[in-house]
């Protein structure tokens, strides 16, 4: 029982990380119907930039507590990623906004490869360790173990989701975003600056990606120019699982994917009598995705928040 509980906790934390990244995918898709494959790479840039900033701050030798240093690094990463998100949209996607849908998709993959290689040129091919400056504390309950960092990650992704839902449903900006998603031309006739709304969406999504990147590298203790690829793929899967374009769906999809992977890794071996080992956890997760898509093609939470006519 304590093992089951621990696996649920593991899945919840892993799922929260997926959800944080998936929110970025789903925001962009909700408004542009574009799958921004470069999003995983923005996460990677966020992680690497924050590590560089943290290294620089540590190098100055200021007597700051570890949490403050990480927060400062996070702020720098968010600023850089916001600029990067804006730039990506401006340079790579805006010129193609009226092109066939395949064109921006290919561009997105191209941007992702470019970002990977630029990061490799800047930071090298090595794994960059996350300095051990965060005080990690373990808590035990009912035989399961959770650390303060894990709790923080889960809370953060719920807050990010809550904040996004409020932003979209309760603010003027959110209304403009929904209007843009429904009918960009009509929205612009109503005085909505469609271009700046789309830019803002990318900036917000990229800032979330920066947060996710910093969390991932703090949690696993390393960052690497390649880390965005698999993370992006998993987060995209999570977004599709929950229903892409739907903020709640991204959250649900992320958490579900994390929990399925954890439980899969734990029980797939014993259940199949050792025929399939725990390394099939990824395959298992994708198998569940296929099942869901067969019966609910638009994902678990279904329709996008707004449907374009």
């Amino acid at each position, binding site marked *: 029982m304590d*093992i089951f509980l621990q696996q649920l906790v593991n899945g919840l934390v892993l799922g929260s990380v997926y959800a944080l990244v998936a929110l970025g995918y789903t925001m962009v898709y909700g408004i542009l119907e574009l799958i921004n494959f470069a999003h995983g790479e923005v996460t990677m840039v966020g992680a690497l930039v924050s590590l560089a900033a943290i290294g620089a701050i540590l190098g100055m030798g200021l007597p700051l507590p570890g949490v403050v240093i990480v927060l400062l690094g996070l702020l720098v990463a968010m600023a850089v990623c916001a600029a990067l998100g804006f730039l990506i949209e401006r340079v790579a996607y805006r010129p193609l906004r009226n092109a066939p849908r395949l064109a921006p998709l290919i561009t997105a993959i191209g941007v992702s490869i470019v970002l990977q290689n630029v990061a490799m040129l800047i930071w090298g091919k090595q*794994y960059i360790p996350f300095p051990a400056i965060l005080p990690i504390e373990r808590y035990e309950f009912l035989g399961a173990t959770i650390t303060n960092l894990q709790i923080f990650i889960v809370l953060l992704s719920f807050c990010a989701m809550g904040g996004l839902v409020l932003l979209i449903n309760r603010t003027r900006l959110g209304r403009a975003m929904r209007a843009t998603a429904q009918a960009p031309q009509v929205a612009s006739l109503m005085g909505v600056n469609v271009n700046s709304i789309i830019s803002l969406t990318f900036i917000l999504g990229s800032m979330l990606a920066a947060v996710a990147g910093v969390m991932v590298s703090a949690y696993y203790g390393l960052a690497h120019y390649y880390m965005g690829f698999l993370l992006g793929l998993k987060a995209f899967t999570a977004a599709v699982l929950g229903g892409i374009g739907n903020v709640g769906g991204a959250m649900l999809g992320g958490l579900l994917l994390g929990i399925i992977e954890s439980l899969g890794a734990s029980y797939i071996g014993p259940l199949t009598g050792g025929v399939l080992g725990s390394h099939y956890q990824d395959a298992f997760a994708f198998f569940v995705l296929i099942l869901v898509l067969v019966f609910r093609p638009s994902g678990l939470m279904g329709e996008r928040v707004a449907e374009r006519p």
Partner: protein
Amino acid sequence: MLQKLSISVLSCLFALGLGACGKGDEFSMTTSTPTTPPSKSANIAEVAEIVKIGSVSPLTGPQAHLGKDNESGVRMAIDEYNQAGVTIGGKKIQFKLLSEDDQTDPKTATIVAQKLVDEGVVGVIGHLNSGTSIPASKIYSDAGIPQISPSATAVTYTNQGFKTAMRVMTNDAQQGKVLGEFAVNVLKGKKIAIIDDRTAYGQGLADEVAKVAQAAGSQVVAREFTTDRSTDFMAILTAIKGKSPDVLFFGGMEPQAGPMVKQMKMLGLKAQYLGGDGMQMAEFVQIAGADGEGVYASSPGNPLEKMPGGLEFSKKFTAKYGKIQLYAPYAYDATNVLIEAMKKADSTVPAKFLPVLATLSYSGITGPIAFDEKGDIKGGAVTLYRVQKGAWVPVP
């Protein structure tokens, strides 16, 4: 009678003709460009003949830093020979390095192997991983080109019956035996949990450790698997924690081993962590930080400071290419052995220097190098290390 005689004469002639053909083929296939007929060689004896040596390692992807390290080792050896000047078969030889990226992918490995064969290399140093060295070895074997891996340790690599497949690195069976005995005898492991990353390297080592530990009377309580791209091991570590092992062995590389030991501490899994040479790297200590203290790992061969020419090599290498990651000394030695065999055979034709290479005794900077009948290094050393105060220290 007469008829019989003429037939035998004919067949003799035929055989001779075939032999000549064979030789001609060999010549045109293996002599590197530009091919110059022997008659003209007097004129252009001063122009150095280009002899191509291949190096294959992952230069992109998660193990790119190790791949670059190997490539630099090969490059350094080749540069040194070129600087000193080498004359083989009466001709001045200029070695040229052709470096290829196999991306740690078995399929890409065969493609780049074929590419090197087509470009006429006379020998290949590589590949870095067992998973890529094994499929590529068939291609080199078919072409008759010697392949010396500086770092592939899977037993299969030299067990396929290819005369061209060799290595200067202790193999997994030799290393796994030492690790398994260490886990049982020194760490007093009664219950051992084993994880591998499902690569030919990780799996081979883990299987060997499991075999030796079981033979020594210990129990393998858990056998879990991950991949060489994962960073999250909470799920399998939780499953292992339920079996409360004394020793956790991981067959894999440091990008997984580092996060894994952190997550062990996060979960409160108290087993002694043990790994092979893929883990015994400076980066593991950096990634694992304080959680890495007290971890044991083995490394085939000797530590740099115990290598006969280790310190001198380290000085030269660091000045040119930066910090040594891991296998550069072996890549350097593998290249030296290859070239020494050519010098001793006085030929750059693989078919001629391969038999010499197989029986060569060479004292390299990593130690004495000689191959057994399978192509494994004779008497490969294994050293155990422990992380103490943030650095790998050899266990006395």
